[in-house]
């Protein structure tokens, strides 16, 4: 079958690989209907996430049809249309039982690498490096889904493939940022990044009753999309002093909750960017925390900063003094999708969350390398490239 493989830093190509097979009784095999790009993939493609091998299949946000089930699968049948959580959870370890699915103890087949990086390994994830299990990704014709009773969810009738697709990763990630960030009615929320993740965090904040939601980015198409589909206000950080603008819009207090949805390759317009970028490229820091710094700076006294963007290692010049002296709550997490996906599919079905608008470019899997090029460089207003096999 065909699959999109990582062949080296900034090198992707569609290759022929053997079809996946059932390896454990609780596996299913899914025939892909749609699979999409995620900002997290850019960190892999750019070589900022280590532990990739040439030939690794990438992709982790997908919807498909069940074509084979292992003998231990109870909740799915051949023919079911399913959306699959990007993180794999066993459903029965202490972390899964406590709804912290991306911390599952039993799904990272390379625990030693994860422990070397983070002290404790995280859950396995599709197509996201050998530190996270080295599991084959979804940009392919077929993919094996371990622990399918817990990670695959039937798509309600009336929700089309394209709308369901994003319930796999970006919608639950955004929801988690608002939920674990503690957004409540009356709050003012600021969101850095208007990619799919930032937009979905903003929409979740609106639905959780935030009184004002303000999103920050520089790309005009994304800012416009955020106003139209999300119902949030926006700030272009290249033409405005973000901290001053936020102070003015929040009565001098600062936002109650700041959600960072940018990640380790943040861009900035100040001279600090060159410093950060140089250090990043020389590997003197593993991540560029521009937006996190800004969020910590802008957040009101006693507020919460939630980091959704992916960071891999150490950052430089982190304003810890602000965290302590302003009494901030600082949190982050990889997405605990299984906790939210059924509820989110219902909200998508009810029209409360618009997702299909994120799919700006749909194309055949054969053109996936081109799709990533458009996504990475934000060409032609690309927010997400979507591949069909």
């Amino acid at each position, binding site marked *: 079958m065909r699959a999109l493989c990582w062949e080296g830093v900034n090198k992707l190509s569609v290759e022929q690989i053997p079809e996946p097979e059932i390896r454990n009784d609780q596996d299913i095999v899914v025939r892909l209907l749609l699979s999409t790009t995620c900002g997290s993939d850019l960190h892999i493609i750019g070589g900022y996430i280590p532990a990739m091998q040439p030939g690794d299949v990438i992709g982790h946000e997908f919807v498909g049809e069940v074509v084979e089930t292992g003998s231990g699968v109870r909740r799915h049948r051949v023919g079911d249309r399913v959306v699959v959580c990007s993180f794999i959870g066993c459903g029965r370890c202490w972390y899964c039982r406590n709804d912290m699915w991306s911390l599952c103890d039993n799904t990272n087949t*390379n625990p030693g690498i994860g422990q070397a990086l983070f002290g404790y390994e995280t859950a396995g994830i599709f197509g996201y490096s050998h530190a996270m299990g080295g599991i084959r990704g979804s940009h392919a014709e077929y993919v094996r889904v371990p622990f399918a009773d817990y990670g695959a969810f039937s798509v309600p009738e009336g929700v089309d493939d394209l709308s369901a697709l994003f319930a796999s990763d970006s919608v639950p990630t955004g929801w988690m940022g608002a939920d674990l960030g503690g957004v409540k009615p009356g709050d003012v929320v600021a969101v850095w990044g208007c990619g799919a993740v930032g937009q979905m965090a903003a929409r979740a904040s609106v639905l959780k009753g935030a009184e004002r939601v303000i999103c920050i980015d520089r790309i005009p198409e994304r800012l416009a999309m955020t106003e139209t589909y999300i119902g949030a206000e926006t700030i272009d950080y290249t033409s405005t002093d973000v901290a001053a603008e936020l102070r003015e819009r929040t009565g001098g207090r600062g936002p109650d909750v700041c959600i960072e949805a940018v990640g380790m390759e943040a861009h900035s317009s100040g001279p600090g960017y060159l410093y950060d970028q140089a250090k990043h490229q020389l590997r003197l820091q593993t991540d560029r925390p521009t937006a996190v710094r800004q969020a910590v700076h802008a957040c009101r006294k006693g507020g919460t900063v939630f980091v959704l963007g992916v960071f891999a290692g150490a950052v430089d010049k982190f304003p810890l003094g602000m965290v302590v002296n302003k009494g901030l709550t600082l949190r982050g997490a990889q997405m605990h999708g299984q906790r939210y996906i059924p509820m989110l599919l219902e909200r998508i079905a009810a029209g409360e969350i618009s997702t299909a608008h994120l799919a700006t470019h749909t194309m055949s899997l054969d053109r996936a390398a081109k799709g990533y090029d458009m996504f990475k460089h934000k060409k032609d207003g690309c927010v997400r490239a979507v591949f069909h096999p």
Partner: protein
Amino acid sequence: MNQLARTALVLAGAGAGAAVLRKAASARRRAREDGERWMVVTINRAPTDVMPHGDPPSPLDEFGDALEITVRPAPGDRGTELAARLREPASPASASLPSRLAGKDPRQGVRRALREAKSLLETGEVMLPDAPPTGRGDTVGGKVVGLASRRAGGEGVL
């Protein structure tokens, strides 16, 4: 060079030498300690499920008398702490990087077995990697990642 400077240099050299020796001694002590340390996993099951008749869970049972094994309830309703260590402590040399890369540290087998026992008890299976693997070791980076992956099941900080 005057006498004072020479003496200072000699002393500095001796100091550095002593520091190196101290460091080597403390590394040896740590390696010995590590060899005797218990390796522990917490299993989200009751102690009676983990060691039903006092027998160690599979695949730890395969080690027979070579392992000491203990169980105790984990605090806060978190299940059971299952600990194991080799009766014959692994030699400090086996903890060296080359020996671990070669898969010759006997503790790698114990860690792997502890993880498998936990996964079997919690989920009924041990999740296997995809087969055949599609990642290749035909670059330096690919080779390193491939080797690290082969050892990863028995490595880490249990």
